[in-house]
């Protein structure tokens, strides 16, 4: 049956002001799947690469837990190796996995489909973006194999130690790391320009900004943050690169290393810290904002209820983004800053709790009296809200200077940031994959296996990170290879470390079940149809599933409403897709309108 084409409503819809740009059509297999310019393929390339390198970082965390849980048992994990594992785990997870997956993966897949575009506005640049990202990943991987190994300076790469002898990978390792970061930033900028301009310019008719699904808002604002914050990482990487290779003294003070006076003089390591955290703090929200957006859509769809306070949600995203630029020095309370600065940064940090709390209340109020369906995506979405609140609360501790000082560089900090920007966004990644996998492949992921995966991951991560807060309160430092027989540390702390390690292995292993589910369901999964979740947004209204090149068939959809028309009384179905004209909505007419395209 032919799909009801909204374009027939010429009375309502004036002609578009911008003509459609002809699409690039690949002719060969390689052009279609390797050097692809289709955002959906690029999204999958990004996602597979990010998840691949993320698995490496997951294995690194296992090795770290082996050492921490069972010190002196594994001789091949030396202090040098340990520091390299810590550094690479952090760097990969934050930048090469989460940033790339949320923006490059979900951004590429969802933005064109959700705004009703055929593709990104600059498909060629979009393709380049992925290949430059892949180059950055490869440079990072190469650093594992160079003499001296990868850098062990911590993911923060603080100078002077990052480039001094004695730090693991202080020559080739750190060099490749800095180059890889600079390359990553260049690649990201190419992609980021695409995401922003596509949202601004390529929305279909009727898709006003205030009708965009919150997923798009989250990714859009995160991209703006990233475009403005990544230059700070670029600047610090370039300047440290020059300190390392040409002997400039941007960051390097006059110092004596191994009894020798080095040629550096007058540089300021704090300068690096300012630049790094000027990127580093917005980075938290570069990861969190897409998660906020996606969770809003998951909750509304699976609770069959319109999102509570849509405009407030959009403004909260903007305010959080803005505030994230004025809190960076709360990562530097122990650097000896002026007390008034500390006061300023503590205040701004705590103020972020306000828009964030608004979002949490709105999620809860959306769930309130909703027709909640505990599907796997919904479970992950609700788990995210819990975890983000938990991680956020320990952030209130650390945001205060007096509380932060004793807790700085302890396991408490590790627990905090893993809850808030590790586990919480990863829960959203899982929820989003369970939610959109049917659209990407045309098949459902296995539900029982998904629930097993969910419960082990959710409960397991609490088993890992809750006790870590306690270790932190005892004063157990982070980044230490072994604590040894330190007198203030009781035996129970060692026992707790064993427990955490065991939990980490179980949670890690559960991810293999997820990977199995991804592969197995691709071939054997239940066919999903075009709109299995009965969602309103445009990506579920495509004539084919998975969407083909060009996304929407012959004519682009026209949008008449926001993305949250769920639970509408008096209708046969409880939702109205965004592209259903108002005239078609009355109950008697509703039966004639196909609520989703049958491709």
């Amino acid at each position, binding site marked *: 049956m032919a799909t009801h084409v909204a374009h027939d*409503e010429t009375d309502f819809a004036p002609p578009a002001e911008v003509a459609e740009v002809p699409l690039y059509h690949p002719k060969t297999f390689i052009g279609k799947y390797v050097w692809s310019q289709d955002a959906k393929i690029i999204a999958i390339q990004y996602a597979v690469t990010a998840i691949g390198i993320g698995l490496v970082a997951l294995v690194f965390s296992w090795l770290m837990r082996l050492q921490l849980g069972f010190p002196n048992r594994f001789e091949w994990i030396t202090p040098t190796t340990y520091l390299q594992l810590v550094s690479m785990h952090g760097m990969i997870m934050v930048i090469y996995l989460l940033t790339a997956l949320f923006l490059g993966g979900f951004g590429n897949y969802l933005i064109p489909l959700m705004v009703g575009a055929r593709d990104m506005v600059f498909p060629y640049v979009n393709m380049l973006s992925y290949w430059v990202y892949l180059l950055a990943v490869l440079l990072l991987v190469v650093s594992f194999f160079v003499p001296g190994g990868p850098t062990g300076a911590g993911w923060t790469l603080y100078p002077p130690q990052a480039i001094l002898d004695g730090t693991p990978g202080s020559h080739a390792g750190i060099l490749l790391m800095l180059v890889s970061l600079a390359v990553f930033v260049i690649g990201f900028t190419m992609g980021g320009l695409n995401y922003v301009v596509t949202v601004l310019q390529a929305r279909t008719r009727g898709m006003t900004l205030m009708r965009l699904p919150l997923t798009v808002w989250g990714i859009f604002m995160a991209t703006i943050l990233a475009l403005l914050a990544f230059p*700070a990482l670029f600047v610090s990487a370039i300047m440290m690169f020059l300190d390392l290779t040409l002997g400039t003294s941007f960051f390097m003070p006059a110092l004596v290393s191994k009894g020798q006076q080095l040629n550096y003089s007058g540089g300021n390591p704090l300068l690096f810290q300012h630049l790094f955290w000027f990127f580093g703090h917005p980075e938290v929200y570069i990861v969190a904002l897409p998660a906020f957006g996606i969770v809003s859509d998951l909750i509304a769809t699976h609770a069959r209820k319109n999102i509570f306070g849509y405009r407030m949600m959009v403004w909260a995203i903007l305010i959080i983004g803005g505030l994230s630029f004025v809190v960076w020095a709360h990562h530097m309370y122990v650097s000896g800053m002026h007390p008034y600065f500390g006061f300023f940064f503590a205040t701004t940090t705590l103020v972020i709790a306000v828009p964030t709390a608004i979002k949490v209340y709105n999620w809860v109020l959306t769930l309130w009296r909703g027709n909640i369906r505990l599907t796997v995506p919904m479970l992950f979405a609700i788990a995210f809200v819990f975890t983000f609140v938990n991680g956020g609360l320990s952030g209130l501790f650390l945001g205060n200077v007096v509380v932060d000082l004793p807790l700085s560089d302890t396991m408490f900090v590790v627990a905090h940031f893993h809850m808030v920007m590790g586990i919480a966004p990863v829960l959203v990644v899982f929820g989003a994959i369970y939610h959109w996998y049917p659209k990407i492949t045309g098949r459902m992921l296995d539900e029982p296996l998904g629930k097993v995966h969910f419960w082990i991951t959710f409960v397991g991560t609490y088993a890992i990170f809750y006790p870590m807060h306690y270790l932190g309160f005892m004063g157990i430092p982070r980044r230490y290879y072994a604590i040894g027989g330190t007198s203030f540390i009781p035996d129970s702390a060692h026992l707790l470390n064993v427990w955490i390690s065991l939990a980490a292995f179980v949670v890690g292993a559960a991810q293999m079940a997820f990977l199995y589910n991804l592969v197995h369901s691709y071939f054997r999964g239940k066919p999903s149809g075009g709109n299995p979740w009965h969602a309103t947004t445009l990506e579920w209204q495509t004539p084919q599933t998975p969407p083909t090149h060009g996304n929407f068939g012959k004519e682009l959809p026209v949008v008449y409403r926001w993305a949250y028309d769920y639970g509408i009384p008096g209708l046969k179905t409880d939702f109205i897709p965004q592209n259903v004209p108002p005239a078609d909505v009355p109950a008697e007419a509703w039966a004639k309108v196909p609520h989703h395209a049958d491709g």
Partner: protein
Amino acid sequence: MTIALAFLTLLMAVIVGWLLRQTLNVQPWQAQPAGMEVSVLTPRPAIQTALWVFLAVATSLFVLFVSAYSMRLGLADWTPLPRPRLLTLNTALLVGASLAMQWAVHAARRAEPADLRRGLAIGGLLTTGFLAGQVAVWMQLNDAGYLVSTSAASAFFYLFTAVHGLHVLGGLVAWARAWKRAWRDADPARIRLAVQLCATYWHFLLAVWVALYALLVSDVLGLAICSSTPL
């Protein structure tokens, strides 16, 4: 970092103003016939929006370099360089290039292809001259014994000029494409757009250079990168 914050505040104000326009008096939960809402699609070409977004990113980059400079400034080992005389000439070349680009835009608007090509050619030539001049300045400083690692001041000198120079080089790539289009393409609208984008970018590069140049020679403020001793 005050400078970076000032830039971001400005940018935030722009974004807040833009979003206010989109949200005030808008009730997204009410369905409407498409086309009834404020600003459906802006007729501005996507590439133009992309350029402006890119300029914001590039500004962020330069602002952060300048922030780093302003924080490093007061510390030890800040030995100003002599001021290369050639910088004045280079600045004049870049001003000329920017004017020539603007002239090309006017020619494109008046549909005078000969003037357009002339403007583009002069703009490209002067820009190449600017880059050559910058390299000459580097060589002069190098010969005078001011290497990149000599002091923080010289390191910032090389850094600023190199980063700016790379942006100019990137501009020349876009310029070459506009040039090709001006010679081959018959579609005047496309040529006009290309030239217009080039001109916008050139004005941006000039503005950045003027700001950097002021930092290089602003010894009235105290510790500039270059002293008043000419080279």
